[in-house]
C-alpha cells in the first residue's frame, strides 16, 4: 500500500521519445489508469515502474523510497501481463506459490496464503490443475492471484483484459476493481480501452506520443477534456473551429459555424482561434415544429446517414457551411432532409488552439 511518485521520467529509443518527461503522483490505495493509443508510451512507463525498462532521466519512488535504481526482482511489485505469463511448467498452486518461495515464506504459511488467495479470485480447488487445462478467464485469475499473494507495494496491470472476449472483459474488470477495494492496494493499470478506463479508475492519465495530456477523474476527463486529443480519444466528440470575437471578463463571444456563442472559461483574447468540443449526446435534433429549449442555440443542416446502434441512434448532419456533426439520441424523431440541431452552450467545452 504505497503512493507512487514518477518524476520527470524520460526514455528515448533511437529517435523516438517513448516517454517524454512524464511526472505522475499516484496516491496510496488509488486505482490509477494510464490510457492512450498504442505507441503512446503507457506500457513503457508501466515497465519502468516494474524495472523492465531503464530510465534515461528522472526517478520513481514508492512512498519515500527511490526504486528506479533497484533491480526488478527487488522492487516488490505484482505485475499482471497482457498474455497472463502463467508458468506452463508449474501447477496453478505452484504458480501462485512461486513468489512466496522466492521470499522464503515458510511452507505452511505459503500453503495457507495460496489457498486464501485462490479463494479470493474464485479459483478454490484449482491448485492442482495445470495451466493448459484452464480457460482464458481462469488463467487471468491465476495471474492476478500470483501477483497479489506476495502483498506487493503496488499492483501493475498491463492491458490484462485485452485477450478476453467482450463479455468476460466487463465481468473481469468489475472483479479487479472489487479486489483492489478489498485489499486497499495501489494499482497502476494500462489500457487503450477508454470505456474500461472510465469504468474502473479513480483517476486517469491520458497519454499521447510519450507525454501526459491530462490527469483527472474519469468524469472530468470526459466532461472537461483538457485538449482536443483527450476530447476525441475519450468517447467521440464534435470538434469545431472558432474565433474569439470579443471578451468580457470570464466570458467571451466566439464565432463558430456561422453563429456567435457566449461561452464561459475561454482563454485568449479577441482574434484568437479556439477549438470547441460538443459531445454527440449534448446535441439534439428538433422534431418538425418543435421549439428550441430555453438557452439553447440552434443550427440548421442536412441529415445524412442514420446509424441504428441498438440502445441509441447516431445521426450525421452536415451544416450549411460544410461542417459535419454527429448526434446521438435515445428516441429518434422522424425527420429527414433539412433539420435543426439544438444545443446548450454550457455543455460545449472550449479547448486551446486549432487541431
Amino acid at each position, binding site marked *: 500500500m504505497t503512493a507512487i511518485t514518477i518524476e520527470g521520467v524520460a526514455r528515448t529509443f533511437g529517435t523516438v521519445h517513448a516517454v517524454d518527461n512524464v511526472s505522475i503522483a499516484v496516491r496510496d490505495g488509488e486505482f490509477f489508469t494510464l490510457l492512450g493509443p498504442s505507441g503512446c508510451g503507457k506500457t513503457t512507463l508501466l515497465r519502468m515502474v516494474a*524495472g*523492465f525498462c531503464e530510465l534515461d532521466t528522472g526517478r520513481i519512488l514508492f512512498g519515500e523510497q527511490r526504486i528506479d*535504481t533497484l*533491480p526488478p*526482482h527487488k522492487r516488490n511489485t505484482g505485475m499482471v501481463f497482457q*498474455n497472463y*505469463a502463467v508458468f506452463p511448467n508449474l501447477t496453478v498452486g505452484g504458480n501462485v506459490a512461486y*513468489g512466496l518461495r522466492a521470499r522464503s515464506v515458510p511452507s505452511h504459511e505459503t500453503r495457507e496464503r495460496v489457498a486464501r488467495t485462490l479463494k479470493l479470485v474464485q479459483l478454490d480447488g484449482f491448485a492442482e490443475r495445470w495451466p493448459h487445462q484452464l480457460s482464458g478467464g481462469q488463467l487471468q485469475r491465476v*495471474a492476478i492471484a500470483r501477483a497479489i499473494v506476495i502483498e506487493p507495494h503496488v499492483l501493475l496491470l498491463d492491458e490484462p483484459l485485452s485477450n478476453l472476449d467482450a463479455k468476460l472483459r466487463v465481468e473481469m474488470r468489475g472483479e479487479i476493481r472489487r479486489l483492489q477495494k478489498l485489499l486497499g492496494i495501489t494499482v497502476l493499470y494500462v489500457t487503450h480501452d477508454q470505456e474500461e478506463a472510465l469504468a474502473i479508475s479513480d483517476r486517469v492519465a491520458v497519454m499521447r506520443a510519450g507525454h501526459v495530456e491530462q490527469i483527472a477523474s474519469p468524469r472530468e476527463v470526459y466532461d472537461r477534456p483538457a485538449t482536443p486529443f483527450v476530447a476525441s480519444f475519450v468517447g467521440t466528440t464534435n470538434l469545431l473551429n472558432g474565433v474569439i470575437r470579443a471578451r468580457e471578463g470570464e466570458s467571451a463571444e466566439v464565432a463558430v459555424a456561422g453563429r456567435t456563442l457566449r461561452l464561459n472559461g475561454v482563454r485568449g483574447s479577441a482574434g484568437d482561434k479556439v477549438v470547441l468540443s460538443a459531445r454527440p449526446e449534448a446535441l439534439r435534433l428538433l422534431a418538425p415544429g418543435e421549439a428550441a429549449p430555453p438557452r439553447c442555440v440552434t443550427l440548421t443542416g442536412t441529415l445524412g446517414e442514420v446509424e441504428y446502434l441498438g440502445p441509441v441512434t447516431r445521426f450525421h448532419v452536415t451544416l450549411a457551411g460544410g461542417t459535419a456533426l454527429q448526434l446521438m439520441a435515445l428516441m429518434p424523431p422522424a425527420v429527414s432532409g433539412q433539420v435543426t440541431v439544438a444545443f446548450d452552450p454550457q455543455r460545449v467545452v472550449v479547448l486551446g488552439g486549432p487541431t
Partner: protein
Amino acid sequence: MRAFLGRNVFPLTIFTIATVFLGLFFLWPVLKVFGASLLDASGRHFTLANYTSVLSNRFFLNGLTNSLGIAAAAAVCTVLIGVPFAFCLARLPIGAKAVLLALAALPLVLPSFVSAYALVLLFGRSGIVTGALRSLGIPFESIYGATGIVVVYTLTLYPYIVLPVTAAFKSIDVSVEEAAQNLGASRTRTLRTVTLPLVLPSILAGALLVFIEALENFGVPFVLAEDRPILSVEAYKLFVGETTDNPASAGVLGMLLIVCTVMALLVQRGLLARRNFATGARRAAPLIDVSPALRRVGATYCWLVVAAALVPFVAVVVISLMPFSGPVLHTGLSIGNFAQLFERGYRPLTNTLMLATLAACGATLIGVPIGYLITRHRSRLAAAIDIVATSPFAVAGTVLGIGLVMAFSSGFLILTGTWLIMVLAYMVRKLPFSVRSAGAILHQIDPSLEEASINLGVPPALTFARITVPLMLGGIVGGFVLTFVTVASELSSTIVLYSGPWTTMTVAMFQALEGTSAGVAAAAATVLIICTILPVALVYRLLRRHELSML
C-alpha cells in the same frame, strides 16, 4: 555504472565466458593460420610469397576450381532434388509424410564419408555393381572423381534443402495464391510467379549450407578424389606433411577456404537483400487437390530419393557382415570384420563415445546461455557475439584443427596430443548449432514468463534456471543428442588433432581405408551408423524439424 553492472551481471557473465572461449579457441587459432600464411620459412618475416606461390601453382589452382565447382554443383543438384521433394511433402496429398520426413532428415546425422565409402564398395573399380555390370558386358568406369563426389553430396546434403523449404511451402499464406488464381493465373503460373518466389529465400539459405558443407568436407573427397586436388584435403596433406610439412602453404589454403565461404555468404545475402517476404500465415497452407496419377508420381519420387540416399548405408551394414579376404568380398555371413576391428581393444569406440559426450555437454553448457543472450538481450554486444558464435560454421574443420595445433603446441597452454584439444575443436565447431537451436526454442517462449518470475522476486540467473531451462528442456536434450551424433561422425578436425591413444571410430575407419582392409572399414562404418542412429531414434520425438535443419 555500478547500477548498470548490478542489473546486468547475468548477461555480462555469459558475454565474458563466450568472449574468452571463442577468442581463445576459435579466433586465435584462425588468426594463427592467417599469420602462418603471411610469414616466410623462418617464421619471422612478413611475406606475400606464400600466396603468390600457391596461386601460381597449377595443382593448387586446380584444387581451388575443383572445390568451388564441386560445391556449386552439389548446391544446384540438391536444389533440383530437394525442392520438388519439399513441394510434394508440403502440398501434395501423399501418405506416410512423417516417416518420409524422418527418413529424409536421416542423412544429416549419418557420416557422409560412410556413404562415399559405400559407393566405392558398390561402384568402385572392384565394386559389386561394377563387377556385375561388366559381367553383363556393360562398360562402366567407376565413380571416382568429381561426379562421384557430387553424387555423394547430393544424396547426403539434400535434407539441408528439404527441411527449410518444406517449412517455407507450408508457411505460405494461401490467400496470396488464391489471389493470383482469382486474378486469372493458372495453377502452374501461380506456382511459378507466386509460390516459388516466396520460398526462394529458404532455397537460397539451404543452398548456402550445402555449398559450405561441401566445401569444407574432408572425408568424402578423401575417399573419392584419388589424386585430384581438393582444398580441404590438400590443406591437411600439406600440414601433416606426407613429404615435408608446410604450415605456410596449408595456411594459404585454409584462408582460401574461408574466403570462398565468406564470398558465398555475401552472394546469398546480396540475393536475399531485397527479398524479405514475411507472409503471416495463420495456418499451414492446404494440400493441393491433384489427380491420383500425379499423386502416385509424387509419392514414388519421394520414396525413390529417400531410398537412394539410404541404400548406401544399408549396403555398408550388409557388407560389413560378409567375409572379406583382403579387398575381396565373399558371400556368406561373418562377424570377422568386427572381430578384426576390435582386435586391439574397444578404445576407438569408447573414445568416440566419451569425446562426443564431453563435447555435447560443453557445447550445450556454453551454447544455450549464448543463445539466450542473443535472443533476449538485443544489444550491440549480443549482435557481435552472435556473429562470432555462428562463424565457426564458415571455417573448415581441417583449418580449425590446423589453427588449434599452431596455437596450442607451444606457449602458455600446451594442448596438442590431448583429448581436450579434440573436445575444444568439437565444441567450437558445434557451437553455432547449439546457439541457434537454443535461440529458436527461446523464440517460442514468451519473454513475459521470465519477467513474471523476476517481478515475483527471483533474480535473473535463478529465473533462467527455474523457468527458462525447464521450458527449453525438450529442445536442449534434442540439441544435445544432435551435437553428440554429429561429433561422433566428425572427421575433418579429428584427423588433424587426434593422437594414438585418442583414436576415434572415424579415425579407425580412415586408417582402414588407407590400408586395404575393406572389411574393417565397413565394420567401423557400421559401428558409426549405430552410434548415430540409436541416440537419434531414442529422442526422435524431442527433435523438431527446425533443429535438424540447423545442423
